[in-house]
């Protein structure tokens, strides 16, 4: 169930260029059903819209969840100014994440781009727990923006690419994929729209799950701000990213 609460910030740290890790404590983590769900944060009471941020990790025993975010505009810049001990107005967990309970894969490939990496971490942990082998490809702009490589490495093999080659392999994540053919049966991806499109084309034929982003309004499925088109013939014709997604099986929506 989604709840709204003032969660306490118990940890907040810069982990890469413009990129922060924050841990929040409260009752909300107990409501998380799947990796890939998000929290919808009202950063300042005078804001008009909340900001959706993926749950990157959670610890129900400690009643905590972790988010990783990048400063992109006014909201995330204000978020980065918050301090441990401050409280945040959080609504969540929202949406449908990766269907972890029904995944039957033996070997999973995770492909994350930039600030699309966070939800894959919580997913990777749960896949590993289920005994599924995890290989991860992480794409970043350049060396300074790389984060969570080590964390993923503890869970499986990791490949890192940077656009300018300043770290890991030079180029886009898609350039690594051919080399991984045959080493996975299901893939999971999150990142910018162009990347998702390229990845799903490259990995056509595999079972795949994509986490999609769009500017949200309500975040609860009521306002139709976040729709994405479904393929011709679909009876509804669209999906709501905040409610039906953000995770969709490949082919369920048009990228």
């Amino acid at each position: 169930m989604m709840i709204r609460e003032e969660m306490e910030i118990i940890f907040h740290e810069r982990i890469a260029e413009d990129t922060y890790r924050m841990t929040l404590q409260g009752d909300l983590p107990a409501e998380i059903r799947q990796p890939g769900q998000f929290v919808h944060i009202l950063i300042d009471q005078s804001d008009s819209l909340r900001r959706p941020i993926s749950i990157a990790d959670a610890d129900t025993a400690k009643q905590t969840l972790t988010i990783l975010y990048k400063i992109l505009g006014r909201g995330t810049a204000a978020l980065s100014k918050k301090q441990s001990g401050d409280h945040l107005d959080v609504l969540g967990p929202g949406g449908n994440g990766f269907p972890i309970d029904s995944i039957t894969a033996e070997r999973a490939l995770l492909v994350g781009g930039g600030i699309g990496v966070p939800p894959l971490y919580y997913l990777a942990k749960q896949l590993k727990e289920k005994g599924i082998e995890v290989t991860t490809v992480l794409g970043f702009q350049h060396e300074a923006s790389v984060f969570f490589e080590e964390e993923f490495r503890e869970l499986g093999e990791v490949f890192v690419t940077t656009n300018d080659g300043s770290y890991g392999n030079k180029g886009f994540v898609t350039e690594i994929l051919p080399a991984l053919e045959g080493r996975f049966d299901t893939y999971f991806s999150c990142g910018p729209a162009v990347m998702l499109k390229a990845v799903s084309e490259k990995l056509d034929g595999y079972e795949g799950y994509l986490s999609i982003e769009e500017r949200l309004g309500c975040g609860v499925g009521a306002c139709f701000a976040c729709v994405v088109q479904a393929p011709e013939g679909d009876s509804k014709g669209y999906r709501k990213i905040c409610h039906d997604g953000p995770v969709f099986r490949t082919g369920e929506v048009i990228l």
Partner: protein
Amino acid sequence: MTRLRLSMPGLDLKNPIMPASGCFGFGKEFSEFYDLSELGAVIIKAATGETRYGNPTPRVAETSAGMLNAIGLQNPGVDRIISEELPYLSEYNAPVIANVAGSTVEEYVEVAEKISRDHTINALELNISCPNVKEGGVQFGTDAALAAEVTRQVKQASEVPVYVKLSPNVTDIVGMAKAVEKAGADGLSMINTLAGMRLDLHRRKPIIANQTGGLSGPAIKPIAIRMIYQVYQEVDIPIIGMGGIETVEDIIEFLLAGASAVAVGSANFKNPFICKELIDQLPEAMERYGFDQVEEMIGGAHR
């Protein structure tokens, strides 16, 4: 709680607070947050004759003390709203107001005819003011003669009272209000959003894919209050007020200006519990400002 009760054409309200059209879907999502029977009424998302997919995304953007939206009247069409959405709402004990939209007078009439015959619906809100679709009725909302014409025909077709939702994007709001009153409107609903725009400095293009969007939120409240205040003096039909409501003080301000009831729109996005919280807080706030009954507040600034 008889202090909060009031009656308007077609509507027996246990309190004057309802969610605004388009900000509450068809209620289902919010029923997970609280019991919809607590609401004064529910105004549902616009219905058109056929399924509409709406505008490309992004459809929303934040602005100072407000937001822009250009959903573009996305909805499953009147038939599916009746078969798939209304049954759920009918389980709750709150009057339902159907927001009716269209591109032609015929479409308005068709939707009004069909949906007003559903027993769940207590009143229509005639949306002649959506600024976000070229074929969305905005021409009806900015031309008094057209507004009167569509009101007259919908009124004839409808089985339930008709509230006409006015656009603030006009030179003469009083003229619009009088025109639709004369054409038979049972009430008014005001205001819809103001046409606005925000640019993305990096892309050097409007953030909203539709370019312009409708501005809502506290930013527009002074405009809503002014328009309701002016219209209240010139018409004899009740007004459902909206535009930037976030607090019980805002509600009292709308009622004093001349609204009989209020609708809460964008604030549902900040806080999905807002309508219920405002209903709970209203009696205490009324006391603070010396009011016993909701009805004492209506038009109080004119006495």
